């Protein structure tokens, strides 16, 4: 039994699909306590009782469509025209665009691939250092995870059974805080330019860029306004977003031909399927762990050494940073959230606040050496060694850590908007 688990763990780090690993553990565990194996599927079928799940495939589809269309280019042009005149303008533009784009596509590396390729040459041309530019793009690749309608936020809501509208609200100020800190740093590090290097955008330019992106600008309003105006629940907001993006990109901008649509649909359902099976498999293991009271026993052990909530949060941060640098965000959430939640509740931590802490950590974990995913994606995309990227990302990492500390120890930052709405 113990040997079997070691074997499974070994296969896991050799690259076995994660859902197979989790399912193997579930089957083995239930077999050991002589419970009929169909319980594994019974647990999975409980996913059909989760209304929030509908948001995942629909937002994934909308995000994939946006990534495949001309949206990144239009968004970039618009923000460059509006913000490019500032000191460090292009860097600020990169941050904003990446944040918005990641919020809509989830942090599946799409941002680095779709936007990085446009941003990196532009940054270099504008006189930014290579190291700065690489670090900026790598760390922005997951910026925006805290903004609605980010998929990891929704997934946390599904697993933790927390209200997703509150999570969306809770992420806004912490997300803005991150963007502001990184923006300030970029302004300081930006190149001193001669005025003729890039001509100031004229009013006419602004108007034409605005008009070009006119159909995409209402998107955040549809999502947020729809949910907080009380018009739709999250699942419906996702459906409206998907339909809207479909009409805009296929029929109005015609960036995507109808014949390409089936491929994109399959592609987004493959992405969703990958997440769903991990979630499904973990339903069974979670049930087993809760049944065996593993979280409560863990809590008792931890509490023997740590009585303060703040020390616990510090340890949690360290733990999550390590997890975040090893696992991608979806599997990290699925595996860790169910175990941590009972413990965190016992320490009296608000679950919405906990969600923001989780996501901030996992976001930073994406760019944390040695194995943060963004580092590898950027290394692959820009053909630089991973070590170069380690060094390039370090200052950005430091800034993100500062926001992490603020977010962790000042719950009010996350909860103020939630409380305001009552």
């Amino acid at each position, binding site marked *: 039994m113990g040997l079997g688990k070691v074997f499974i763990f070994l296969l896991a780090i050799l690259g076995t*699909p994660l859902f197979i690993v989790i399912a193997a553990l579930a*089957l083995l565990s239930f077999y050991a306590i002589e419970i009929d194996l*169909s319980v594994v*599927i019974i647990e999975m079928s409980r996913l*059909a009782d989760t209304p929030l799940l509908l948001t995942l*495939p629909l937002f994934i589809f909308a995000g994939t469509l946006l990534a495949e269309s001309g949206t990144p280019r239009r968004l970039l042009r618009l923000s460059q025209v509006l913000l490019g005149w500032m000191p460090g303008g292009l860097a600020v533009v990169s941050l904003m665009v990446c944040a918005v784009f990641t919020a809509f596509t989830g942090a599946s590396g799409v941002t680095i691939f779709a936007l990085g390729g446009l941003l990196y040459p532009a940054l270099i041309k504008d006189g930014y250092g290579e190291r700065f530019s690489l670090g900026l793009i790598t760390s922005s690749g997951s910026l925006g995870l805290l903004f609605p309608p980010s998929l990891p936020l929704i997934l946390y809501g599904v697993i933790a059974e927390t209200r997703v509208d509150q999570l969306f609200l809770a992420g806004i100020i912490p997300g803005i805080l991150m963007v502001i800190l990184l923006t300030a740093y970029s302004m300081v590090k930006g190149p001193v330019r001669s005025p003729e290097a890039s001509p100031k955008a004229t009013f006419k330019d602004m108007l034409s860029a605005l008009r070009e992106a006119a159909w995409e600008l209402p998107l955040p309003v549809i999502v947020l306004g729809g949910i907080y105006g009380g018009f739709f629940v999250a699942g419906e907001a996702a459906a409206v977003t998907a339909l809207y993006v479909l009409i805009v990109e296929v029929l109005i901008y015609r960036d995507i031909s109808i014949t390409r649509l089936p491929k994109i649909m399959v592609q987004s359902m493959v992405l969703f399927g990958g*997440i769903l*099976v991990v979630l499904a498999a973990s339903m069974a293991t979670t049930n087993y762990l809760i049944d065996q009271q593993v979280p409560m026993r863990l809590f008792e052990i931890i509490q023997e050494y740590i009585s303060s909530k703040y020390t616990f949060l510090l340890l949690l941060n360290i733990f999550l940073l390590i997890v975040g640098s090893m696992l991608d965000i979806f599997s990290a959430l699925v595996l860790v959230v169910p175990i941590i939640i009972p413990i965190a509740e016992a320490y009296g931590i608000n679950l919405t606040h906990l969600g923001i802490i989780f996501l901030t950590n996992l976001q930073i974990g994406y760019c944390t050496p040695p194995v943060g995913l963004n580092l590898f994606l950027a290394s692959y995309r820009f053909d630089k060694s991973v070590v170069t990227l380690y060094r390039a990302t370090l200052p950005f990492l430091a800034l993100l850590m500062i926001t992490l500390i603020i977010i962790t120890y000042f719950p009010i930052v996350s909860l103020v908007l939630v409380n305001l709405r009552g």
Partner: protein
Amino acid sequence: MDSLKKNFSLTLRFVSRIEESLLCFLLSAMILLACVQIFLRFFFSTGFAWAEPLLRYMVLWAGLFGAAVATKKGKHISIDIISHLLPDRFNPWLQVLLNLFSTVVGSGLTYAAIKFVRDEAYYGGRGLLDIPSWGLNLVFPLAFGIITLRFFILACKYLGLAFSQPRTSSNG
């Protein structure tokens, strides 16, 4: 033997076609149905009572068949920290091991799923729209069955690769 192989690959391609059409259909239907619900509620303050539960099952079907296609495309989420440290020539063997293991676990899941659906057929009632509940849950054995088969095919494929690659050392 050759015609058997040809028939087999034809069948596989047929399955892929059906899967992909099913995914497109489910996704479009989910978007439409959810939007129609909003429309009905806004303008007529009504809606279909069966729409919401049906949508939730459609999500399950879309996700599990998406996972079946993900198996074919090698797009499953995995941790994979140390496999790139291995020398290249071990890679096919590693893939054989991983895919065989996945086949075994997949068979376990398929077995559990068949048992679950059989129990539902005996004891489960009728679900929404008068569809028996085993029918709604049929996706589990179907999808896990396809996934298992695909892992097995991948294992065989890599086994062939492992034997056909040129040998660089004699200690096997």
